[in-house]
């Protein structure tokens, strides 16, 4: 029974599988009037697809050799169509039809791709960069960083915040159509990087508005951060005290840390151990009025603090993660921030 039905199916397939017509029409594409060419190509494409589908559906019933011959025929046709199409309808950008044929006509693709990419990046280049010369210098002065220090007090006021006189890239002008001058640039939030510091104290509380704070590889340091508009990102730290207020806090591969935090979303830790969390020491940083203004400037809600809702990526169970805890009253060291801020004057 089985054998006859399989044979039937195979026979049926052979009767219906007719690539010849498509082949002929494919060959005749050159003679099709320009106005109808697109339609004709679409039609052929659909027919080739249908043929391919018919073959794959009948893989079970057909002898392996026949399957291969049919698939080969389909493949040859679709390749030919791709070629014809790129020749006859050159204006359309990307001319390959299926992922399989893509590989075989890669040189053509690459050409298209580079072309489209170049136009793409050059248009966006025009949009975002009125001038490129001197870019690296600008970057240096606007990206503030402290790195490779030992046993020092570092404060942000010491960094040269002199006006970026070099023309800067302007963003979003499509939307608000305003050209930002150096003054408004100074007002923009800036990112800070702290890397490879040992036994240092760092004070980032200053008039400068800050964006994200990137911290990497700090040992036994104390860092005080004002409310910032971006995230605090921390990697590979040990035995530090971190005081900061931000939208998002993401800490990685660190251990034995005291963290005094104001964060308006759930902070996360990953590959961390022995992390202790406490609320931000608001009154040690600035006067209440100034602090409120800095919070507002940074777009942070001063009433929402999720410091005790830490999410541990290495601990997906319901129970409390062993990698972090909220500090008890007697573990909270008050005056730490104050001491660091006071060091500026020495």
């Amino acid at each position: 029974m089985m054998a006859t039905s399989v044979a039937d199916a195979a026979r049926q397939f052979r009767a219906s599988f007719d690539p010849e017509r498509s082949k002929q029409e494919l060959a005749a594409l050159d003679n099709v009037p320009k106005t109808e060419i697109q339609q004709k190509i679409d039609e052929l494409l659909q027919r080739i697809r249908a043929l391919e589908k018919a073959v794959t559906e009948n893989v079970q019933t057909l002898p392996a050799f026949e399957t291969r011959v049919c698939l080969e025929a389909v493949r040859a046709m679709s390749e030919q169509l791709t070629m014809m199409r790129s020749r006859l309808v050159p204006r359309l950008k990307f001319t390959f039809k299926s992922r399989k044929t893509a590989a075989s006509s890669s040189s053509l693709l690459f050409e298209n791709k580079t072309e489209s990419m170049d136009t793409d990046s050059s248009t966006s280049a025009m949009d975002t960069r009125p001038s490129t010369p001197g870019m690296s210098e600008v970057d240096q002065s606007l990206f503030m960083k402290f790195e490779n220090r030992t046993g020092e007090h570092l404060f942000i006021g010491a960094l040269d915040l002199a006006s970026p006189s070099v023309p800067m890239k302007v963003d979003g002008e499509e939307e608000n159509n305003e050209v930002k001058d150096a003054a408004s640039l100074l007002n923009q939030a800036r990112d800070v990087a702290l890397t490879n510091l040992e036994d240092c104290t760092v004070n980032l509380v200053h008039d400068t508005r800050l964006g994200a704070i990137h911290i990497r590889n700090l040992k036994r340091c104390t860092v005080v951060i004002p409310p910032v508009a971006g995230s605090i990102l921390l990697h590979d730290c040990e035995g530090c005290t971190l005081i900061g207020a931000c939208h998002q806090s993401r800490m990685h591969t660190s251990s034995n840390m005291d963290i005094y935090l104001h964060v308006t979303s759930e902070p996360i830790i990953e590959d961390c151990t022995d992390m202790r969390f406490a609320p931000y020491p608001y009154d040690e940083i600035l006067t209440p009025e100034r602090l409120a203004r800095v919070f507002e400037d940074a777009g942070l809600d001063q009433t929402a603090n999720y410091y005790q809702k830490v999410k541990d990526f290495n601990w997906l169970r319901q129970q409390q993660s062993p990698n972090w805890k909220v500090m008890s009253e007697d573990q909270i060291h008050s005056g730490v921030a104050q001491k660091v801020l006071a060091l500026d004057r020495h």
Partner: protein
Amino acid sequence: MGLLTILKKNRQKEKEIRLLMLGLDNAGKTTILKRINGEDIDTIAPTLGFNIKTLEHRGYKMNIWDVGGQKSIRTYWRNYFEQTDGLVWVVDSADRLRLDDCKKELHELLQEERLSGASLLVFANKQDLPGALTDVQIREALELDKIVTHHWAIQACSAKTGAHLLKGIDWVVGDIGSRIYLLD
């Protein structure tokens, strides 16, 4: 009549595009998604799993998958590869410390067989930050010019201001459209 209905249905189904949005943590993936969707971006928390949004754009139904970028959940990215038409790689243009990481993860991803047909859009995000690298610098840092296996483009943008997001999405939708549905 019956056949026509089937064809129409098939066609509707075809007009779906699946975009997978990946990148290192803190790149701004969720912010981009929410900004495109017109949602509030001030209260975004780090993504623990994933977010999906379905949008209509230029006649296509786009399913955008935004998957968390934390290191420990990057291994789960592969669960989302299947059926992906476009990969949106989001870069924090101001995160110089991790550009190497970023490059490594991207190029590893492009080795993935199940993503072999996907168009690649790189968003050089956070251009609103004065210290951000330009799209040209990001393109060099990520060695995008070495990519020959995928259609790609890079777009400088800012999810915070919304600048140029649409342009990038337009490109990726157009590219996928011309690739998969060349009838249009």
